[in-house]
């Protein structure tokens, strides 16, 4: 299948099931989804609805049981682990709920990591710039354990953008943070996203955060439905402006 030039990600008849001892558990019912380049999309839903499963399939971290996933024209469902990791290195960025910084590396080195893996020659320079953009220039040589939760997530955001990915997956990026810090992180994420023009796929159960995205889809017991909330577009943009 050839993707429309505007589409960055396309999913067709995607299912995921796991085999338990005596029965099969359907995590995802057959679903369709297309995401355009530069779009911001929120996947919302309650715990256990299948949001995270969907995210792992979209990002090529896992393989579907049936169905197809195309990311930048790469048929991820046909790829092995190695090929998928190559695609991730070249096109994908991540932000995790648990931050997942590498404890043995400094903040700067954590940020540089994806750039190095993607063969970007000026990784250090870019890392420093990005740390400056998230307001952590002074903490470049600190280890994650010396940073607060909010600071760690800011480092994670810098890391997510350094390789200028085509698509960024954020899994509950403010889930581990208090309200105020969470809001600040969210602002930062949307600001940078807008600046870089990256496609953003945000998984959250936080309706407020989801509403800052152009588009929302909802997962419920493995079934995906599109939510239309056009009025929130303006709010999203205005918040970004405030932060900047």
């Amino acid at each position, binding site marked *: 299948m050839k993707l429309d030039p505007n589409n960055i990600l396309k999913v067709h008849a995607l299912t995921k099931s796991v085999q338990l001892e005596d029965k099969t558990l359907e995590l995802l019912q057959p679903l369709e989804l297309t995401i355009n380049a530069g779009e911001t999309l929120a996947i919302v839903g309650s715990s256990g609805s299948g949001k995270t499963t969907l995210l792992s399939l979209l990002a090529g*971290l896992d393989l579907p049981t049936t169905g197809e996933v195309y990311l930048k024209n790469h048929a991820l469902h046909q790829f092995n682990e190695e090929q998928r*990791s190559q695609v991730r*290195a070249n096109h994908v960025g991540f932000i995790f709920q648990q931050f997942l910084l590498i404890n043995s590396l400094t903040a700067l080195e954590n940020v540089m*990591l994806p750039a190095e893996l993607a063969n970007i020659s000026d990784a250090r320079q870019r890392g420093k710039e990005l740390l400056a953009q998230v307001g952590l220039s002074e903490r470049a040589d600190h280890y994650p354990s010396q940073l607060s939760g909010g600071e760690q997530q800011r480092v994670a955001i810098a890391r997510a953008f350094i390789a200028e990915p085509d698509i960024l997956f954020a*899994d509950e990026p403010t889930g581990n943070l208090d309200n105020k810090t969470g809001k600040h992180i969210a602002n930062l994420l949307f600001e940078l996203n807008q600046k870089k023009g990256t496609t953003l796929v945000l998984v959250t159960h936080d309706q407020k955060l989801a509403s800052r995205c152009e588009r929302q889809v909802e997962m419920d017991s493995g079934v995906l439905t599109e939510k239309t909330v056009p009025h929130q577009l303006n709010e999203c943009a205005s918040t970004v402006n405030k932060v900047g």
Partner: protein
Amino acid sequence: MSANFLDKRAMNKSNLWIKQSLRLLHHEFRRGELTIICLAIVLAVATVFSLSGFSGKIKQALLTNSSSYIAADRVLRTSRIAAPEIIEKSQQYTLKMAEKVETESMVFAGENMLLSELSVISDLYPLRGELKVIKMAEQQVPTVEHAPKSGSVWVEPSVLSRLDIDIGDQVEIGVTSFVIAGIITDIPDRSYRAFIAGPTIILNIADLEKTQLVQPGSRLTYKYLFAGNIDAIKSFEEWIKPKLNDTQSFYDAKQAQSRLSNTLTTAEKFLSLASMLGIVLAAVAVAVASRRYGQRHQPMVAVFKALGASLPHIRKLYYLHWSLLSLISISIGLIVGYCLLLLGTSAMDHYLSLENTSLGYKPLSISVVTGLLCAIAFAIQPIKRLINTSPLSVIRGFSTETLPRFGLHQLPPILALFALLMIFSQDLTMSLSLLIGGMLVSAVLLAFGQGLMSAGRTVGSQAGKSWHLALANLKRRASENSVQLVSFTIAIKLLLLITVMKHSIISEWQQQFPENTPNHYVMNIAEHQLSAIDSFVNANNIQSQGFYQVFRGRLSAVNGESLLNTEMSDEASVEKTQSDKQDKTKTTEKENTPRQGMGRELGLTWGDEIPYQNKLLEGQWWQPEDQQGQVSIESAIAERLSIVLGDELTFDLGGQVFTVPVTSIREVNWQSRQLNFIMVFNKSVLENFPATYISAWMVPEQTKDHLAHFLREFPTITMMDFGAILKQLYQVIEQVSIAIELILILVVLAGSLVLIAQVQASMEERERELAILRTLGAKGSLLRNSVLFEFVALGAIAGLMASFAMEIAVYFLQTQVFDMSASFHFSYWLLGIGVGASFVGIVGLFSCWRLLQLSSVTLIRRTM
């Protein structure tokens, strides 16, 4: 993705993994995350290096030192002149050779005569040690000599007093006269037999023929002394050993000195055992630490993979990381090992000169191999699992599941452990029994530990709150804890084992050579001298073993069958029996040759009671009033001469022949310096024969000066001082005891490391639990106490099981390996439980202290 971006991409990614690997290593070292694993490898390498170097050096030094006691590196003793090919072969190996012929002969000076021991030596004698002679009456310090000039002899002081002559006078030996040219003060390979014929006279081998002492049938012992490069000596030994017949023996200082040799062998076995246990502990520490390493690195691998790092990239990164970590640890281990070795040798220098000993390549090579084996075999599974971490873990969380306890994945560490034990001990039985024993013990402990911990819960439910929580924790983690428990138990067990064995070996040595061990034999005492000598003994604070009547006689026939007589000393006979037992081919040959005899005159005695430290094995001891003649024989000689209870033995005492039945067989402790007799008769057999008396004395250092006066007063008495050889034995015991202490410290370190590594391995899990408990409002003191009690309980259970396992192991070691009598050590059980509880408790609490001090928010932030 912009074209500009693409341009920026470097074409060459080949060295990224190197860069990242080095960066990781640098940071992790700085942050102390690799300390435990690094220490484990360092300790394994340092232990092996220092111990193998140390024991190698001690062995060399002791052998060199003790070589002086046989005046050579090796001696060939034979009753006939050696075949010329033997001499030629020794020359081919560029060995130095000296000859010594020993015989007994009457010597005359005017009207006086004396039975003496003749040592006929060649010019190179002695090859090791020093022969010291005073050549002029007024000379104070003796000079170091080789053989006397042809035509002259050197004599022991009592020859002069008993023949009433002086330096410069003449003695007749055989048909020739010799000038006395000096007084012997020191003979390196002097015989310490209690029953020698008389004082020693040394003459040059060039004069032997002139004396006409060598006649058909004359009893001579030929000794060929060899010395040289250790490898050449060994090759020569390999060449000559198969060519020896029953009348020849080839020995080194160790074989010649059974006491020294026994002490050394026990010490070597102990050092080797202790080192092996040290290695096992260090290996366990590596295994535990690498498991934790694997778990800690999982998030990193998952993030790397999620961010697009390929599997080969991660594999190379970690292989390099691990290799560098191993190399650094091995290098540090070698340095630490070398420092320990220097420390050990400098501590030992006071007792033993180690200067001329070489280290060789063995310590280096086996310690590096140990380090590599530990680093590779014990870490391969955790690292393989780590590298295979799924990138999906970044979303799904990290698995803490452990591998099944029994399976193929355990093969590499087990094989590696076996290889390590084999490399170090070169003893298949010891390695296999340690390995299989260890595996069985671990399996039993695993099951037993789980049971104990579940039982603890029932008891604990009535106890205080912290205890309750602690025991509930133990129960809940019974499965992981039982693995932890096995490590604790093994560590404590090995520590107890080494302590108990050290104690029992050293006390056994001390028992063998108590403070009052005799250091002099006094011989040729006439009956009329007894009371005067007794008062000398009492006046000079000498501890005497009492006086034994001694008769010189020969065993000539068994059940009427004459014996083939080959010269041999008492101890040599006993040793020969033992070595023949191991050499079955010789036994078969022996069956076809005539019955072997003792080959020389024996010191015979009579007694109403069984001699001190002898044990009756067969038959019965006689009543003092028994009139019928009887003899009791030493068990090893009985076996060697195939004599059984009821056999009729014929003896020849100065031409008078009599036959008596064997009515008992005794075990004699040859290790002691007591007066030991092979044949003991009842009084009725010997009462009519002329006898002299013999005694063994412990002469205190301060009264030694009085002995010269004593000898002048009783010139006919022969006295033999073997204080020097006893002193050397004490020194060896002392040295080896120090070596054992040093090893004990290393083993304790290794054991502690296992405990720390194991506690650290459970840290993440504990962190999560503490966070939950804190959130639920648990007080700091409750948490602290519950952590402390949990570890204390774990340590106490481990201590109890360790004591039990130690007892079994000690029993096996004492009876099977060290040839000692078994003993039980209940006091060590308390020590085991106490040490287990306090050590594990303290280490556990300290390791968790940092966690316990963290605020709830931090804990939650770190773990959620």
